[in-house]
């Protein structure tokens, strides 16, 4: 072991190296996906190959002005970013436990639904109503997440298909409530706007929800790295056999992680409804924040704090879609960028591949 002062400067260097290395990959992924996306932009605007850079600057320019051009637009962007932070953290928690919670979409949706219903209750004071509406979404999401969690923990059924099925079922539950119960307005195909007492306050036009989201990120980070529960979750995610050997209860942790993940997604839904949209229409397809949350988490390498800048990126892309449309660039470019990002995150191996090539050059004798 090295001496104390050497250790101190070593530590700083190591930390710096660590940060650069962790960022290198996500930045690389973003870079490549933009690179690919520009081709689609060129195709839609009919640019020739020599106009690549024009297309690139067009794309970036429009995205930035579209999302941050005016105060109004920046606020709008924040409204997209906030739910993404929640769904990103929700996905990240499940990934850390080795579970692919692709059901964040459904859990988020039910969070919205629960909030939409609870938000209609008459005659409550905001001090009661706001925590209640937030809680309702959290509980709804947690319950919805517990289903695939139980099925995986107790019956060993792979969670992916169950989560996807529950996403679709959640959509139909929302429609059922809107169309067939008094909680929805059949004629308009939506739930009523919630009571004022249930609406989250705004700071300078931005919903308070973003503060909740940031707090959530910090709390989850603390949970994962500073508590025994987090140690267990991460251990199970990497090596369930060794975790079992080390006395960790695999079943309990899988269920816990899924419930927590669903709860955070549901919380995000409730915050979104209570802070921004105040009602929900009937659904013909997925709302989308859940699926995007997976991309957010993957890019952030499942780090809850990393989900914040990652959500910022995806939220920005999302929020610029309207203005892209106006500039004759189809908004699908945004989804294309997203999927390419995921593709590159999935191929983590590229980095390892280059690392291995480097090591081969410095061969050392056996031992």
């Amino acid at each position: 072991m090295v001496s104390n002062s050497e250790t101190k400067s070593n530590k700083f260097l190591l930390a710096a190296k660590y940060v650069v290395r962790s960022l290198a990959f996500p930045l690389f992924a973003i870079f490549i996906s933009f690179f690919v996306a520009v081709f689609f932009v060129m195709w839609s605007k009919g640019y020739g190959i020599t106009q690549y850079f024009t297309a690139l600057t067009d794309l970036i320019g429009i995205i930035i002005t579209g999302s941050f051009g005016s105060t109004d637009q920046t606020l709008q962007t924040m409204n997209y970013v906030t739910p993404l932070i929640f769904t990103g953290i929700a996905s990240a928690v499940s990934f850390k436990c080795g579970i692919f919670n692709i059901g964040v979409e459904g859990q988020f949706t039910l969070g919205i639904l629960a909030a939409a219903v609870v938000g209609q209750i008459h005659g409550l004071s905001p001090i009661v109503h706001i925590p209640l509406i937030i809680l309702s979404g959290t509980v709804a999401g947690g319950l919805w997440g517990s289903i695939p969690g139980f099925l995986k923990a107790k019956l060993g059924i792979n969670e992916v298909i169950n989560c996807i099925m529950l996403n679709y079922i959640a959509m139909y539950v929302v429609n059922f409530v809107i169309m067939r119960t008094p909680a929805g307005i059949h004629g308009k195909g939506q739930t009523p706007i919630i009571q004022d007492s249930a609406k989250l306050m705004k700071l300078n036009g931005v919903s308070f929800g973003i503060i909740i989201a940031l707090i959530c990120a910090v709390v989850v980070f603390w949970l994962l790295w500073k508590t025994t529960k987090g140690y267990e979750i991460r251990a199970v995610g990497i090596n369930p056999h060794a975790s079992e050997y080390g006395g960790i209860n695999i079943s309990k942790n899988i269920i816990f992680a899924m419930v927590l993940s669903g709860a955070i997604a549901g919380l995000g839904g409730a915050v979104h409804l209570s802070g921004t949209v105040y009602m929900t229409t009937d659904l013909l397809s997925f709302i989308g924040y859940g699926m995007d949350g997976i991309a957010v988490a993957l890019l952030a390498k499942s780090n809850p704090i990393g989900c914040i800048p990652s959500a910022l990126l995806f939220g920005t892309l999302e929020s610029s879609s309207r203005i892209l449309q106006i500039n004759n660039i189809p908004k699908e470019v945004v989804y294309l960028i997203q999927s390419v990002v995921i593709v590159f995150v999935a191929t983590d191996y590229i980095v390892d591949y280059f690392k291995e090539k480097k090591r081969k050059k410095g061969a050392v004798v056996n031992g």
Partner: protein
Amino acid sequence: MDKVMEMKHITKIFPGTIANDDVTFELLKGETHVLLGENGAGKTTLMNILYGLYQPEKGDIFLNGQVSKINNPNDAIKLGIGMVHQHFMLIDKFTVTENIILGIEPKIGLKIDMKKAINDVKELAEKYAFNIEPTAKIEDISVGQQQKVEILKALYRGADILILDEPTAVLTPQEIDELGTIIDNLKKEGKSFILITHKLKEVMKMSDRVTIIRRGKVTGTVYTKETSIDELAELMVGRKVNLTVNKSEAKIGKDMLVVENLQVKNHRGILAVKGVNLTVRAGEIVGIAGVDGNGQTELVEALTGLIKPQNGKVMLDGKDIFNKTPREISDSGVGHVPEDRQKRGLILDFSLFENSILGLYHKLPFSKGIIMKYNEIRKHSQRLISEFDVRTPSDEVTAGSLSGGNQQKLIVAREISKNPNILIAAQPTRGLDVGAIEYIHKRIVEERDKGKAVLLVSLELDEILSLSDRIAVMYDGNVVDILERKDADERKLGILMAGGTVKNGKEVRDGE
């Protein structure tokens, strides 16, 4: 005798190591030439090159005097080279025939001509006097039979040179003799054999010549009848090796672990432990000998809570630990060095300090309530690392970056640091180099001298014989006999391991 194969000046480099460093190796027709070396010396790598699975950076291969390029197993097979790997390359769900014909299936139209295939296999088996059922599924036949299928696979493809990688690892002493007979018969037909092994006794018994590899380099090629086990050991390790463990007399104390009529089903639902009775006392090492697959794995898993036992009683120092969770068992005073260190013993992506508290994190001082106390954890891990000589730049590196020997040392350190009443060590030195083996043996004996109970499970008879005070043999899910060390020798143990019985020192056969 002419040279059927020569490998000249072979060099193979992997990221970070030179696996083969200017190696020259030859094979004469009709001989058994052993490639001897410690784990990690480079023997398997060299043979993988011969079989076309790897390409060397430098060097040439000559077959019957001709330079040959072997770019893939197909080339090797065409040149008459066959390889039986250490871990069998057989598909459990397929039949014997399907495994043998895979890749060169006889066809009739678009279909596989299964009738011809079965016939061909039957004829081949009869030609070499192998007793094999062509339509049996691999998962239903014994390990010895599976090895025969592997050899048939090579013969079916016309192999004249057969490479056997650690062929005796999974066999009883009697099955090893049987293999020796098969090899002799095949040599009479003109086949030549390369045996890869690290077992000195087998080398002396089964080979004509030995080439020793240490750390990627050849340290010698000798005629077996002109050398000795001690000389081979020295060539293998580079220094004089003490092959025996110095032990003082055991100071036996009270009964620590008492197992009564323990029955355990394996993960497939079949009864693997069929009523085991065993006692381990404080201050003694009880070794469980046996061929892999006779219930030892399930026994250890049941004792440590990793599998649910059906029936029986297990008491530790008077406390009931039957069918308890791994945490309850560990907290009751059981230390467990698992047989698969990378699967069970460590979380390879976690740092060393996070691994050092696996199984301990829920206790003070490592955590208070749900808060982890990293200061204490780091102190603990650094103490383990220095006390047990774990070679690592710091405790922050991942466990996966350590060598096998250092990984095992960390696990042993951790389990011993729990100060358990009984230490259960399953295959504690599997895959380790001699230095690490010596060290771990030393610490195990230390625990026993401190008055702890030790239950040792090993597939290496030498290890059992050198460490144990008493030896229990497991065969087919039962402990067939328990011998005092002074009454046990390899021959007796071999008979018991194969299911025979020993009366008055003589093997008793059925019907006598």
